[in-house]
């Protein structure tokens, strides 16, 4: 495309296997170890990426 560069498509995963809750909790207050959920990665995808297994 000439006018549009695609960065990422459909990244909010609504797959039925999601919601396992294994990812880090995400307090946004100024005194804690993490903040918005946005800066977190899906734990399943991390495992999949590390193990190079993409199918779920």
């Amino acid at each position, binding site marked *: *495309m*000439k*006018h*549009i*560069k*695609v*960065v*990422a*498509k*459909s*990244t*909010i*995963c*609504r*797959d039925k296997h*999601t*919601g396992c*809750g*294994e*990812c*880090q*909790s*995400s*307090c*946004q*207050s*100024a*005194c*804690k*170890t*993490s*903040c*918005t*959920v*946005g*800066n*977190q*990665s*899906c*734990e399943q*995808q*991390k495992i999949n*990426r590390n193990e190079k297994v993409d199918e779920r």
Partner: protein
Amino acid sequence: MIHTFDCLGHSFLLDVESGSVFIVDSLTKALVENLNSPVDYSRGEFSRYTTEEIEEAKSELDELIKEGVLDSAEPEHKKAEYNGVIKAMCLNISHMCNLRCEYCFADGGSYSGKMMNMSYEVAKKAIDFLIEKSGHRRNLEVDFFGGEPLLNLDVVKQTVAYARSIEKEKNKNFRFTITTNAVLLDDETIDFFNEEMYNVVLSIDGRKEVHNCVRKTATGEGSYDLAMQNALKFKQKRVGQYYIRGTYTALNKDFSKDVLYLNDCGFDQISIEPVVLPDTHRLALKKSDIPELIAEYETLVKEYFERRKTDKWFNFFHFMIDVYHGPCETKRLVGCGAGNEYVAVAPNGDIFPCHQFDGDGNYKLGNVLEGTFDTTLPEHFAKNNLLCKEDCRKCWAKYYCSGGCAANAIHYCGDINKPYKMTCELMRKRIECAIAVNSLENLK
């Protein structure tokens, strides 16, 4: 819903419901901004373009809309349910503190109550409670918090040893984190952190004069020299995650200088966050400060983006968003999970929805020593997720912010479902910066 914004010299589109991100030229951005209104293409900004150019950009947009990655509709969401599972716990290991930071919500560590350390007995019971409530979840998080946790280091060590001694048999994996002001951080403690702490958060506010102005010892002296000296030693020896985190207030609205100063000191994991205080407090950030603070984030993101191409690369916590592999929708709806999958335990064993409620009798959920836990409030917290917050549902940042901090909503707006607007605008600005940085760095 599509959000358009400019950052770092580029124009971006965020398709809110799908999470798709695009970089576009100014013509395409203008077309999107007028997507649902009748437009005369011979007038205004469109008059600069030829009919062919406009048609070409429109057809590219149509292609994405057809594909369902632009202007996508809000899907049906899973209903928020309370399942009683707790996966993370803040252990308020000490209500004592060796500092008297002026903005501390914990009131010098005391949380407006009795200054006390948590006993090993309480900590052990809290670990048992967490395991018992964690269901099938394997990864359990325990954050040692205070006051100043190093004032009760022996109990921290005993608690870690206890949890480690049973985690295999219980099929759990504990991730310990600790937040400290670094004043008492010595070599032995650094070694212990390297062995056991998944993440360590050191509180330093930035430049010496900024830090010393609000972070004083009990005798009124600035704590910067000690904290910084120990933090630098820590950084040299650290194996694993850490953050230098600070708070900016009305006294340092030029906080980008503090972020960059910390980077110049040699730190590469930095988080400086806005203070949240009642308007009457001398350090409080006010609504009228917002334009200045937004401009400050703009200054910071430019320098941040440049430094990340050099050997001064660093992470600024609020500019980190994983555009590609972020959390699933369920997580984005639930957010911090306070009072639901996350609880805080006070030194006397009382359980609260999170550390910000510690000491507030209205929010006491139970007590680990007494073995009590009332699920009325946890159910309330679980059910009031992002989808119950009317303002948030209309907000483009909702899937990155998750509806904000429940404690702030309750304490400052009197309602868990009313976002604390003061932080919203800053949150939205930071998310734009984060999406821009992440997109530009990963663009092939």
